[in-house]
C-alpha cells in the first residue's frame, strides 16, 4: 500500500446519486484478476461504453479528464454489493480519492483498506464543487490528508472529518494484517479464554 501524501489532481464530477458498485464495476467482470490489462476499462463500464464497445459521451471519457485522479460524487456513492473490485477498478484508473456526501459502508471500508482516500463533505459542498468542475472542465483539486483539508477548483478550502486510525493507515501505507499481528499476544490470550467459555462453538 502506497503512503498517502498531499496532492493536486484533475477532478471529475459524477452526478449520480446512489451510484451502486454494480455501476462502478458490472458483476460480469468480477472473475477477472485485478492485474488484468483490461481492468481500467471496467470502471463505470456500462456508462462509458455502448454495447458495441464504442465510447459514450459520459463525462469520464471526455478529454479534459484524461489525467483525473479524483472523483467528486453524489450521495450514497458505492452502495450495494461488497465487491472490492470497485476499488480495484478506480485504482486501475489512477483514482486516489473520492469525495462524496455519503458512502456505502462496505465500499468506504474497502477504499481505506486499499489506500484510496474517501472524503465526506456536505451535500451542498459536493454540489458546489461539482458545479465548478462542470464550469471549468479539467480543473484541479488539492487534498491534504495530514491537515484534513480539500482546496476546491477556486481554492476555497474545506475541512473534513477522518478517523485517526484510518489516517495513520493511509499516511503510512500500513497493512492491516501486520497491524493486527502486533496484538498477537492479546489475541492468543482472548482465544484461550473464549474457547474455554464457548465450547459449543468449537
Amino acid at each position, binding site marked *: 500500500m502506497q503512503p498517502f501524501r498531499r496532492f493536486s489532481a484533475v477532478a471529475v464530477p459524477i452526478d449520480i*446519486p446512489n451510484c451502486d458498485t*454494480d455501476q462502478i464495476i*458490472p458483476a460480469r467482470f468480477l472473475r477477472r484478476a485485478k492485474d488484468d490489462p483490461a481492468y481500467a476499462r471496467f470502471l463505470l463500464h456500462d456508462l462509458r461504453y455502448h*454495447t458495441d464497445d464504442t465510447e459514450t459521451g459520459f463525462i469520464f471519457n471526455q478529454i479534459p479528464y484524461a489525467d483525473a485522479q479524483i472523483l467528486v460524487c453524489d450521495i450514497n456513492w458505492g452502495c450495494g454489493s461488497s465487491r*472490492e473490485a470497485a476499488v480495484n477498478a478506480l485504482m486501475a484508473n489512477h483514482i486516489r480519492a473520492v469525495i462524496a456526501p455519503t458512502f456505502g*459502508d*462496505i465500499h468506504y471500508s*474497502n477504499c481505506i483498506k486499499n489506500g484510496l482516500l474517501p472524503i465526506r463533505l456536505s451535500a451542498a459542498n459536493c454540489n458546489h464543487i461539482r458545479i465548478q468542475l462542470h464550469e471549468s472542465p479539467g480543473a484541479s483539486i488539492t487534498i491534504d490528508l495530514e491537515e484534513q483539508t480539500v482546496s476546491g477548483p477556486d481554492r476555497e478550502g474545506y475541512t473534513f472529518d477522518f478517523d485517526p486510525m484510518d489516517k495513520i493507515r493511509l499516511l503510512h501505507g500500513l497493512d492491516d494484517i501486520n497491524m*493486527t499481528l502486533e496484538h498477537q499476544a492479546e489475541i492468543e490470550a482472548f482465544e484461550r479464554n473464549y474457547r474455554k467459555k464457548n465450547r459449543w462453538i468449537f
Partner: protein
Amino acid sequence: MNTPRSHSKTLFEKIFDRHVIVTRESGDALLFIDRQLIHDLHYRAFEELQATGRTIRYPDQLFATPDHSVPTTAKKLTDIPQGEMRDTVAGLQGAAERIGFTHFDMTDPRHGIVHVIGPEQGITLPGLTLVCGDSHTSTHGALGCLSFGIGSTEVKHVLATQTLWQRKPRNMRITVDGTLGPGLSAKDIILAIIRHIGAAGGTGYAIEYAGSAIRQLSIEGRMTISNMTIEAGARFGIIAPDDKTLEYVYGRPHAPTGEKWEEAMAYWRTLPSDDTAVFAKEININAAAIEPTVTWGNSPQFCVGISDVIPDPASETDLATRANMESALTYMDLLPGTPINKIEIDRVFIGSCTNSRIEDLRQAAEVFKGRCVVVPTLVVPGSGLVKSEAEREGLDRIFIDAGAQWREPGCSMCVAINGDVLLPGQRCASTSNRNFQGRQGMGSRTHLVSPAMAAAAAVTGRFTDSRQLSR
C-alpha cells in the same frame, strides 16, 4: 428493578462486546470472528494469502460453497463450459482440497447459495460473529447472529487472523407492529421499510428489527428482512432469537448438542436487547398498512403498492431526488402516472438469497397451481435441500406444469454471471434484492417483488395483485 441505562445494552452490543479482543483509543475494536463463509468469487484469496507466506488460522470455522458462478443447468463441475466460470468454481474446490476446509461442492446435496446453506446447516447460530465476502451476509442476522458483509482484503484478514477491526456502529431499531394482511410476505415489509428510510437510511447503523409483525414471521421470512438490510445502507440487520429461532436451529448439523446445547441456550437467552437499552434512532412501521409492493426505479427505495401508479418526478421538491427519479424512469422506460398493474413484463425470476427458501417456493406455487405462465419464468431453489424438499412436496410439478423452468441451486439471475441473464431492454419481475441498472444483464430492467407477486406476474404477463389470484 430496572437495569440502569448506562449498563443496559442492545442485542447488537451484547454480541459485539463479547467478541472484542482489544480496543484502540480511536474506538477501533479488534473483534474475534467465529465463522467465515466463502463463495467462488473469492477463490483467489487463498493463493494471495499463500504468496505472503500466511496460513489459514481456523480452517474448521471456514465453510465454502460455489454459488455466483454455477450455471443452473449444471449438476457438476464438468457440466460448466470451459472458461472463467468453471475456473472460478474449480479454484475454490482446489483450495478446499489443498487446505482442508468444509466445501459443499455442486454434487453435494447440501450445496446452494451461501446465505441459504449457512442457516440450513446450523453454521449460522445466535450470538456468533459471522462474516462473508458478500453484502447479503446481513441475512444471518435473522437468527440473532452478528453477521456482516466484508470486502476481499477483509476476507484475507479473517482467514489469516480470525479477527477483524471494526468500529461499533450506532444502533437503530425498526419496530414493525400490527398484522400483515393475508397474501403479503416479508418481502413486502422490507421494501416498505426501505421506501420509508431510504437506500442510505441505515448507513452507519446496525439495525435491529423488532415488533409483533417481525416476531410473527417464520425464520425464513425473517431472513428475507435481514437480507435486504444492506439495501437500506446498513451492514447489520439483526433480530433477537426467540423460541422459533431455537426450534429452527435445534438438531442442525453444525448446531451444538447435549450439554453444549444447554450452554449455548443459556447464553442465547441473555441476548435480547435490555428494556432500557438506548437506540440512536427508532423507526415505527405499521404492518397493516403494507400492500404488495413493486419497485419501479433503480434503487430499492423507489417502490409503491400494486394499486398505485408510477410517481411523478415533478411533484418531488428535492431537485437531486427529482433528477434521480427522472433518470430511473428513462432507464426503466416508464411514464409517470402509469398504473403499476398496467406494466407488462418479459421475464420472471424466482430465486436468490432473498427469496429462494421453501416458504418462498410454496407461496409462488400457490399462485402457479392450475395456471400457465405467459412469459419465460425461471424458478431457482436456494439449495439442494430446498430443491429436494420442494420436490417431496410436489412443488416442482406445479412449476413445470405451469411452464416454468425448474433449475439447480445458485445465485442465478440475481447477479446474472452464470449464464442466466436478461437481454437489453427486457423487463423482469424478480424476487431478488437489487434493481440497479444492468444488474440482471446490460440494459436489463428489474422490478423487485415477492414470490407470490412474481408468480402472479408470470401467469398474467403484467403486475397483478397476487391476492386476486389466491383461492
